[in-house]
């Protein structure tokens, strides 16, 4: 039922004392009983009777007293035991309603006294399994409980009150982590250890998860090509990503905790930024975008464009500012370059306009005297003002010819200027090409007559709709050019129609060109050098012809040439319906 122990003996001390007093009283009784009896029992006969039973009385009486004492002691023990059992039951009852696991370890007996339901559920053992456990060496079956016991014992020996994140192996072999709280208690006169188990596995799991997420967030911050920066209200850096460190040229430990404004912003904007931060405390609206220069370690200023947001704690109180910064230094430089170029372009345009004005003015100034030179020479040659002799006629003819040549040069220059400025007049009309070319050739007949060159026409009649004056100009240029560069032989002009294209070819048997010369052909003021024959011109003819064909007639000018064999120029024009051209114009 219950055991006698040294501790229980102390319950015997009081009855033993009483027993000793009683013994003393017995001796006193033996010593004083005769006289007292004589006093109490005056009758001598009765006294004698009492005297002969005196020892027996004493023995019986003391025996009764002893019995009573022993009985009271046992009753006492029983009561204590019952109380303890009740106490244990109460502990059990209470402990079963606990959420946390609870275990009372009998340290001396190396066994478990009480376990609650929460602990049994946690460990996966039944109550009996736990309570029947006893540390026995070499028993593998209860290995987990053995380990648990040694963990608890160790803590007990160290005198710890708490132990954190202790791994506990469950019956099924899995592991949970628990925070332990210990309390040394005395139970049934034994030194016991009360241990409260608080399962922190989920907390740990959460912590691992948070750590992983943190790692991911950091990776995210570091992988971005922009700066990520967080400042507290004291303007100290509380976060900066890898890119930010790279751009600034510092290690993160050189940046974190430092005052952003003082260390990384140029002095000239300190006041502005500090004022802004102090106003942030007053919950004013944040600037969501702004741009400012930032100083790098090398002292260079880089221009950063920031996207900002406020950092608020759980109560909604502002504790800092979070920014995403883009390095726009190059963008700003590019913008400046673009601005400079635009300005430069504007100046060029101005110069160009000036050039156009110059040409217009010059053309007027040059044409006015030419009007007189050509006009008066013409009327004198026509003898409007009286007869002239042959020598005068010859000389005046030279003046007229030179005047007309000068005029053609001026016209070419003006044409180039007009086409380049895009202000050339366009007057599209329908006409017959064969007639036009025949008329043109008639005007050139004086050249062919004097040079002995032939001019062969292989034409088919075709109606076309285009800028007649410009086409005439081009054909004239090509034909006169061809004749100019011919010494013997002649020039052939022919036309063909290929579906919607009109092809006009001017082929000569002249000096021809090398591929290098062909390449330079359409550049302005390019002239071919001929050692034997001085050829007049400033070299605008083909440049102008090419421009007209491409930009006004919307066609193509092709050239094939072989040195000393001759050249072949081809104009390819679209044959457009009148309607199409009018539509294109509007």
């Amino acid at each position: 039922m219950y055991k006698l122990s040294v501790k229980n003996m102390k319950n015997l001390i009081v009855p033993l004392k009483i027993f000793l007093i009683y013994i003393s009283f017995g001796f006193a009784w033996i010593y004083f009983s005769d006289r007292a009896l004589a006093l109490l029992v005056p009758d001598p006969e009765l006294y004698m009777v009492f005297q002969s039973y005196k020892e027996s009385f004493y023995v019986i009486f003391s025996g009764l007293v002893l019995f009573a004492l022993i009985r009271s002691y046992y009753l006492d023990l029983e009561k204590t035991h019952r109380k303890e059992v009740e106490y244990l039951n109460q502990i059990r009852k209470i402990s079963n309603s606990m959420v946390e696991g609870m275990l009372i370890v009998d340290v001396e007996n190396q066994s478990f006294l009480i376990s609650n339901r929460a602990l049994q559920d946690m460990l996966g053992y039944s109550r009996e399994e736990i309570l029947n456990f006893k540390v026995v060496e070499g028993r593998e079956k209860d290995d987990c409980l053995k380990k648990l016991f040694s963990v608890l014992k160790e803590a007990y020996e160290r005198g710890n009150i708490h132990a954190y994140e202790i791994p506990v192996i469950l019956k099924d072999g899995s592991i949970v982590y628990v925070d332990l709280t210990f309390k040394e208690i005395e139970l049934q006169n034994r030194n016991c250890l009360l241990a409260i188990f608080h399962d922190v596995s989920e907390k740990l799991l959460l912590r691992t998860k948070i750590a992983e997420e943190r790692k991911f967030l950091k990776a995210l911050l570091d992988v971005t090509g922009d700066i990520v920066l967080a400042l507290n209200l004291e303007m100290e850096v509380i976060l900066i990503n890898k890119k930010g460190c790279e751009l600034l040229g510092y290690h993160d430990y050189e940046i974190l905790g430092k005052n952003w404004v003082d260390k990384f912003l140029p002095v000239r904007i300190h006041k502005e930024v500090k004022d802004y931060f102090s106003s942030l405390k007053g919950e004013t609206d944040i600037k969501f975008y702004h741009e400012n220069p930032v100083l790098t370690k090398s002292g260079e200023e880089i221009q950063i464009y920031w996207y900002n947001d406020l950092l608020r704690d759980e109560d909604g109180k502002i504790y800092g500012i979070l920014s995403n910064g883009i390095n726009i230094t190059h963008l700003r430089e590019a913008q400046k370059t673009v601005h400079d170029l635009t300005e430069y372009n504007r100046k060029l345009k101005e110069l160009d306009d000036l050039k156009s004005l110059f040409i217009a003015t010059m053309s007027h100034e040059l044409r006015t005297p030419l009007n007189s030179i050509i006009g008066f020479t013409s009327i004198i040659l026509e003898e409007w003002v009286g007869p002239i002799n042959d020598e005068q006629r010859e000389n005046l003819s030279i003046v007229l010819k030179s005047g007309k040549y000068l005029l053609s040069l001026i016209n070419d220059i003006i044409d180039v200027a007009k086409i380049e400025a895009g202000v050339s007049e366009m007057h599209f009309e329908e006409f017959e090409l064969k007639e036009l070319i025949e008329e043109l050739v008639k005007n050139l007949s004086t050249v062919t007559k004097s040079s002995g060159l032939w001019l062969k026409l292989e034409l088919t009649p075709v109606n076309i709709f285009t800028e007649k004056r410009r086409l005439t100009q081009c054909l004239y240029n090509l034909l006169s050019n061809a004749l100019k560069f011919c010494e013997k032989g002649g020039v052939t002009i022919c036309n063909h129609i290929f579906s919607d294209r009109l092809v006009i070819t001017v082929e000569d048997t002249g000096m021809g060109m090398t591929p290098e010369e062909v390449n330079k052909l359409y550049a302005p003021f390019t002239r071919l050098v001929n050692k034997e024959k001085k050829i007049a011109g400033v070299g605008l003819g083909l440049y102008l012809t090419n421009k007209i064909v491409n930009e006004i007639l919307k066609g193509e000018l092709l050239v094939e040439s072989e040195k000393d064999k001759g050249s072949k120029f081809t104009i390819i024009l679209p044959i457009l319906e009148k309607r199409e051209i009018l539509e294109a114009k509007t």
Partner: protein
Amino acid sequence: MKKVLVIEDNENNLKLITYALKRSGYQVIAASNGTTGMELATSENPFFIILDVDLPDINGLQVAKEIRANSLCQQIPIIVMTSFAMRGDRERILSYGVNGYFDKPINPLTIIQEIHKLLGV
């Protein structure tokens, strides 16, 4: 003899066109600026007017516009002669109500024929 009003400030040009006009049997009335030109247009009632664009007082095109606005002389044909190649927007010049337009330098041998052709004479 039919009268032709020539509004032209350049003496040489005037002389040249005068040769051509006289040879075709016209009487030439000359004005060296726009204001005189407009006065003569109303008072002399010429057969046609030869008008230079670059005049010392008023732009020739403005002169043409005012002649067209004046009921006394609005029917008189106007022939413009200009050497402003860059500004020589044919359509723009014709929009001022002038009958014809010639670029300088002119050919004195053919100019009158061309004017006649233009005016349908």
